[in-house]
């Protein structure tokens, strides 16, 4: 099973890098940009056919390793 996980900073946590990218886009003429948040994307391949089990593993992976739950959120997609 293929799993993708997106990790981003929580909304309330300042993302300086995202802010700089947003400002740069404005300087480049994209005046309608209102916000950019930067994150990380993980492509994970799991030897598991049961969707529910795979989801549980993915959640565990995200909590234990991929995110710092204090400042980051994650989204999981199963394919």
């Amino acid at each position, binding site marked *: 099973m293929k799993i993708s996980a997106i990790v981003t900073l929580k909304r309330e946590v300042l993302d300086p*890098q995202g802010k*700089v*990218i947003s400002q*740069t886009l404005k*300087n*480049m003429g994209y005046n309608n940009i209102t916000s950019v948040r*930067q994150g990380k994307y993980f492509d994970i391949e799991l030897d598991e056919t049961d969707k529910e089990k795979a989801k549980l593993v993915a959640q565990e992976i995200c909590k234990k390793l991929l995110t710092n739950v204090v400042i980051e959120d994650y989204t999981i997609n199963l394919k």
Partner: protein
Amino acid sequence: MKSSVIVFPGSNCDRDVAVALKKFKIKNQMVWHEETNLPKSDLVVLPGGFSYGDYLRTGCIASKSRIINDVIQHAKKGGLVLGICNGFQILIETGLLPGVLLRNKKLRFLAKNVFLKVITINSKFCLNFNKKNIIQLPIAHNEGNYFANNKILNRLEDKNLISFKYCDEQGQISKDANPNGSSNNIAGILNDQKNILGMMPHPERLIDPLLSGEDGAMLFESLVKSN
């Protein structure tokens, strides 16, 4: 000869290079990244450092800064542009030089002296290296692993656009002498017209015996001589 050193937030070799330019009687101005007009210059230097905190990709945000349009125009008109370290990364991101600079192969920041072989002296930056073609300069970078597809690499080799390659003390260009995993041991390259040089090593840091060597001085002497 007149030069402009572009200063970005996070540049940290801007003053070093200004000292070097002054030593060789090049009239220099510091130009802040928010300026929109480049002062009249024969040479533009993009200095080393960590422009904009290396956000997104090294050199990426600087390559979209306000002053950069004028730098690109200057380069396209044949004006000299020297990009050192982060400056090289910026030149790559603007598309003025081909390829990409990846993270060092061993994923470690490297700060040490390396030996370089001057591959071509046929540019305004390297004329004076005819006296000495194995030199030693410091490197200090995390993303200096030059990478390009075979087509670009062959072109650089065939057209003689590689100015420096990492080598050992005897001048042997080998895998062991390659500090960061660069394709073909590349440490610095020129554009087709040879008016733009991007290099990872820092010539401005070795311009005086007091700084333990003068190998970098030859680059600045070449610029003065060619003008």
